[in-house]
């Protein structure tokens, strides 16, 4: 499956995302969660837990992880993978931090793109 990346889009200031928190970006392809860690790193994942689709954006952010609010799966922000014995993966999207501004690019598969 090929993936297509969108050009970078400026989303917001780093300060718009609470430290150890998250904000959501709404896109035609669903909600994307922008996480900010205590170390001011930013990650973007689909806002859907691989377990039962829980909103990861509502979870508690700790280290480079977020705990899903519905059934406590712990998802790695850097790789999108569920940790521990749970198995599953969330799609990541490229993010860039420049002068305190957050830029996002979105990854779509061919099919998703074609059907828009």
């Amino acid at each position, binding site marked *: 499956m090929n993936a297509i990346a*969108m*050009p970078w*889009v400026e*989303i*917001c200031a780093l300060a*718009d*995302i*609470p*430290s*150890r*928190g998250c*904000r*959501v*970006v*709404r*896109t*035609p*392809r669903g*909600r994307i969660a*922008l996480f900010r*860690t*205590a*170390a001011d790193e930013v990650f973007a994942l689909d806002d859907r837990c*691989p*377990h*039962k689709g*829980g*909103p990861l954006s*509502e*979870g*508690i*952010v*700790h*280290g480079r*992880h977020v*705990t899903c*609010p*519905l*059934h*406590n799966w*712990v998802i790695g922000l850097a790789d999108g993978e*569920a940790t*521990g*014995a*749970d*198995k*599953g*993966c969330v799609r990541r999207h490229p993010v860039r931090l420049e002068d305190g501004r957050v830029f*996002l690019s*979105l990854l*779509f598969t061919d099919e998703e*793109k*074609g059907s*828009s």
Partner: protein
Amino acid sequence: MTIHSRQRLVVVGNGMAPGRALERLFEQAPEAYDVTIFNAEPRVNYDRIMLSPVLSGEKSFEQIVIHGDGWYVKHGITLYKGARVTRIDRAARTVTAEFVPAGSLGHIPLEPTVTVPYDKLIVGTGSNPIILPVPGRDLPGVLTYRDLDDVNAMLIAARARGSAVVIGGGLLGLEAAAGLKEQGMDVTVLHLMPTLMERQLDPAAGHLLQRAIEARGIKVITRANTKAIVGNGRVEAVELDNGTRLPADLVVMAVGIRPNMQLARDADLAVNRGVVVDATMRTSDPDIFALGECAEADGQVFGLVAPLYEMANVVAAQLCGDDARFRSSATATKLKVTGINLFSAGDFAEAKDREEIVLRDATRGQYRRLVLKDNRIVGAVLYGDTADGPWFFDLLKRGEDVADRRERLIFGQSYAAGGIPLDPAAAVAALPDDAEICGCNGVCKGKITGAIAGLGLKSLDEVRAHTKASASCGSCTGLVEQLLKAQLGEAYNPAAVQPMCGCTELGHDDVRRLIVAKELKTIPQLMQELEWKTSCGCAKCRPALNYYLLCTWPGAYVDDSQSRFVNERVHANIQKDGTYSVVPRMWGGQTSAKELRAIADIVERYDIPTVKVTGGQRIDMLGVRKEDLPLVWADLSAAGMVSGHAYAKGLRTVKTCVGTDWCRFGTQDSTGLGVRLEKFMWGSWTPAKVKMAVSGCPRNCAEATCKDIGVVCVDSGYDIHFAGAAGLEIKGTELLGHVATEPEAIEAIGALTQLYREQGRYLERIHKWARRVGFDTIRQQIMEDAERRRALYDRFVFSQSFAQVDPWAERAAGKDAHEFAPVAELALPQAAE
């Protein structure tokens, strides 16, 4: 034509056996096959043997899922849920499936059927429960016990309480009966033979078991031959051939299973009692494997998972080109009814060349029976104390000659070894490496000890995560702990202080003490000083620390909203679809035309799908969109309503009855006291939720004696109760004491709440805290030590002076606005051609 680099593997049936085969396959050859699975059940692979704990309420479905949806995604598997394969076309090498009618499944697929090609096919269609051919077997309310749908149907039927008849007194029937009883039904078990589980137990042991079952309030009728099931449009009763008529709102048939081989038979594969396979698990068509309960291997069919997992290993190896072979071996099983220990392994059929050794200890309710042939154990039953089960089973499987210790054998491992009881850890240490510890997952001792040493495992949970041992029915937990102990020695101490979580070695109480002693004021400072092992904690410790700091430093500590669970951060309960529910306070369960009108208007204005009266005497609006929350709250505030904290580890409701206001029996103003208590205590944060009630007389219509704190009014004043529970556990309250006046009652309750706030561990309800510290210590401090009571009460009042700010009004006025709106909206650029 496309050339396929990977072979196409199609699997029919997504049960435990194929699930295990695929796990093994992906371990050995992750890239070899493109896998497609069809499952007639509309769900992922789950641990079928744990359905009984789901029925009894000890586990949820989530807890017994083996492969979550993510697993299928990760391995690139196409899983068709709710799709039944109806045809295997061996000439064309395709299978065709049709979708099971949607009903509760949610969606109706566009294509009514789907056909996919295969290079290799696995048939894992399991078994069908046997349905007795009696009149009335098709009536609604007659169920079997095989899958989650059966359990859900039973749970729904059990809601109305009523009576259930379980036909069949074998393992499954007894587990179903125990579960239905747990759910509050009036249960009768019918068994055709004179004693229960007659294939495993002799009559005496059958009676012991019957007594234990009856002691839980389940009726057992043996020699019961069902003649008919009767009812008009729905089951009403079961009739026996001796004329007895048993009323029944639910009938469960658990009389046996039959391998499900119709599909294979229609495809002209060789079938006998099951789908016939050779030692490589191939059917009469070499490209088609069969495994699980539907397969007949080595001339036998099986109904327990251990041999099925063995089959799975063989299928996986064969798919990778390795020459593994299946050999049947003895099986062991355990009755999964909490509180009844029954272990049985091997074969009990009587035969001339077989001998028995039996041990009975009636006073201790113990029974053991070994069946020997040529001085080798071929069958073992243990009732009461089953700790030696694995040891006997191990002797049985290796066919060891026991002639030299025959007379001591029955007393178990410690005595057979030479009369000196071994300590249990040494006994487990003495087991050979290939002794099976976990029967459900087929994990032997060597694999566990290897993982403990190789991966540096330190706890039961870690062993569970890495080896799966003790992760299913849990009956081998003790053994696994012994292995940890044998290997880690002093380093393994399950009774030691439980650390709060993986981020620290400190327990909850240590942390609370250190917060005060070292005057720790913020989470980062605390983590620094107490040497937290992670950079910023985890989802377990952060909410606890936030509460401890808030409780210790009222007014000074600034709440860390990022350390709160979403419900407490956004002040509403998240629902499974990501919407929220909103529950405003109705003080003491009282409302007014004005409030009801405001609620009605809000429901219409924001198009709220569900309005429900809760179990706590107030109204819940469910399905509110997150972005509407501040608007809904603004309208509620305008009508004078505040948050009901239905989401909080804090004060929830104070239920009341009508008391002296209206009731001819009322002794005091219970409604008024309830309202005053709720107005006094709302907004307080506590270790876990606090629910209260005030009843106007001992008839107790507000159910005050199952609450965290309850008041029962009497002529002479107020009986104050505490430490009740009516959720996961049911527990009547203990009496805290009696007071004569309302102000005294309020002071005692405020003091009690503060004591709990200061001592309770995060998420520990009042009843658990009280059991831990002792009811009498609490009574003494609140009822007898007036100075202490006053001091506690004052601290509570002080803390409340900061707590009673309505979070909804604040948010309606703009606080935390970022919580409720997306940070950006993106449009897609046009697809470039």
